[in-house]
């Protein structure tokens, strides 16, 4: 049974967990780095003096801290995008990928790798991926046109996602003879936070912040839409405008996440669902709680995998492996 009164406590707990997760990320991993080094590096950065340990400074400031913050931001974005998607389609099994935004982002990113454009700089692949996400969004809006019902949107999104997947598969097949290119493409498609830096965080923050603010702005319309489209219209919701804004919101959040970290599934599907089971469907509480839970889940997965193995594991696969059994247990416990 949902307990909306627990929402503030849940949100506070999740935010605290996220902060602890970010701090934990800075000491987990290879190299002899402890909390003392973290304090020393942060002090040095704040005061502008050189850190005592050159390698600790490189590991904590240049690698771990931006990565941890990016992981948290991407998890939050995916959780929030999932809540908006499920509200838009009024279906708890909908996930952000159904609009084909991730697939579209992947096509352009992989195309850039195929033609060697990524060698021009670190910014190329994220830029292409984001351009792919925007192009997919424009294609979706154009194709659906004025017949913008939820069902048409869903079907058009599925078709566009299928085209994107097919094109990506074709490019992978063509790249098969050049094994290192194929390896690079597959690694990107699996999703990764490896070697992400302050630059990646800087590129992603504005669109992610914009997407989340937009989601919060849409919270009342999302609530009203739960009553059905005709009811929402009768209550004064401009459903066409609402849908356009919701699509832009999802594209900003998912497109940016895919651009900086590759395709990460599952978070957008299950996190909002789990949070909804706990605190109910009101988006005023659901959106921030989903964002915080998404951040915590992705941080936990990234910290645990980095701390337990030196093998680079795709976060999307691990989130599914950890979250899905928990989700199933929760469904069974709560009677579906």
């Amino acid at each position, binding site marked *: 049974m949902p307990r909306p009164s627990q929402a503030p406590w849940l949100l506070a707990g999740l935010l605290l967990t996220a902060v602890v997760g970010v701090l934990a990320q800075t000491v987990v991993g290879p190299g002899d780095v402890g909390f003392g080094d973290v304090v020393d590096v942060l002090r040095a950065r704040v005061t502008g003096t050189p850190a005592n340990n050159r390698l600790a400074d*490189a590991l904590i400031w*240049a690698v771990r801290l931006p990565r941890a913050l990016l992981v948290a931001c991407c998890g939050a974005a995916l959780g929030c995008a999932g809540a908006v998607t499920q509200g838009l389609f009024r279906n708890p099994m909908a996930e952000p990928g159904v609009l084909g935004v991730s697939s579209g982002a992947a096509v352009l990113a992989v195309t850039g790798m195929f033609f060697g454009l990524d060698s021009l700089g670190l910014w190329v692949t994220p830029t292409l991926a984001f351009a792919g996400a925007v192009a997919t969004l424009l294609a979706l809006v154009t194709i659906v046109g004025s017949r913008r019902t939820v069902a048409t949107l869903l079907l058009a999104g599925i078709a566009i996602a299928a085209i994107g997947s097919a094109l990506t598969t074709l490019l992978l097949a063509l790249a098969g003879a050049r094994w290192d290119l194929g390896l690079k493409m597959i690694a990107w498609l699996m999703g990764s936070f490896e070697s992400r830096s302050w630059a990646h965080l800087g590129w992603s923050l504005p669109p992610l912040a914009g997407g989340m603010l937009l989601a919060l702005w849409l919270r009342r319309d999302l609530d009203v839409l739960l009553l059905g489209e005709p009811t929402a219209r009768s209550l004064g919701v401009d459903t066409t405008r609402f849908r356009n804004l919701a699509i832009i919101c999802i594209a900003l959040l998912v497109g940016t996440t895919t651009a900086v970290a590759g395709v990460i599934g599952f978070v957008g599907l299950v996190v909002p669902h789990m949070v909804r089971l706990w605190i109910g469907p009101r988006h005023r509480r659901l959106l921030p709680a989903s964002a915080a839970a998404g951040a915590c889940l992705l941080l936990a997965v990234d910290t645990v995998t*980095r701390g337990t193995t030196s093998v680079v594991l795709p976060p999307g696969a691990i989130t599914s492996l950890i979250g899905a059994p928990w989700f199933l247990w929760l469904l069974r416990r709560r009677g579906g």
Partner: protein
Amino acid sequence: MLTTSPEPHAQPRHAPRKRLLEVCAPALTSPVVALGLLLGSACHRTSPELDPSHTRVISQTALSDEILWNLGPEARARVAAISSLADDPQYSDVAGRWPTDVPRLAGQSEALLARTPDLVIIASFTAPETQAMLRAQKVKLRVLDGFTGFADYRTHVRAIAGDLGLQAAGDTYLRSFDTQLQQLKSRVVEASPRPRVVTWHAGNTAGSQTTFQALTDTLALENIPAANGRTGHFALTGEQLIAWDPDIIVTACAPDLATDNGVENGCVRAERQLAAMPGIAATKAARNRGVLAIPPRMLFSSGSGMLDACEYMHTQMIERKLAPGATP
């Protein structure tokens, strides 16, 4: 750099087999695989034991393309097809050398069978279905297995030369190769401790039992992943790379890149980009010009390109004062 010959490629001498091909090829190239298999079975040769001096060979690995070329004109004359990687300068040491009339095949069973080869050279990682189909057609296979350094390379050269009845040509070639390798080794000065090196390309590195280990052994360097007990190729995080703080980081590069300002040396750019990466910039390698970018045909080679890679790395290390014995 090794044995090459200006003689043109000669056409194979197999008129009777060509007639057989005319009968069987349409069936073998049919898109209906099952039918192709049935008809192919009806057309297969009954005896796989052939006179090595008349062996009609198809190469399906970049390494065997290179070995066949280096074995000289007699070997080249027996070649019915080579791999589709043969012309790729990123991976092939003999790119642009094989005549254009030699077909390039990408491992499709039908296309291979249609050429009626006596011997197909494949790798252990060739699709098992392709291997099974070729075996079912009684085609002799030379499966190259083990790509971990100079010893494996010598084994492969001897095996292919033996298959073609050209043992003498194989021995001559290997003598020339080993002479150059010994000359290089004699120029390498051992330092104590050895400079610590890691190869890192597209997030992957190489431990022991790899060609990179062979390069580091030759150049008296310590391959850090191998020293940490890691074998084979595996993904390496940038974080671990920084924590190891190597003296030298070796990566691959495209030698020439077209840019707005003309052609830029892609290796210089690759070194600059890697050395400037967050975190990596703090390593000894990045601070002391120890980031070495070398063309992939050398770094990824399991053939004569390994020797080129050693020469290239040695020259670069001397120039940058990274090599043992260089001026501190």
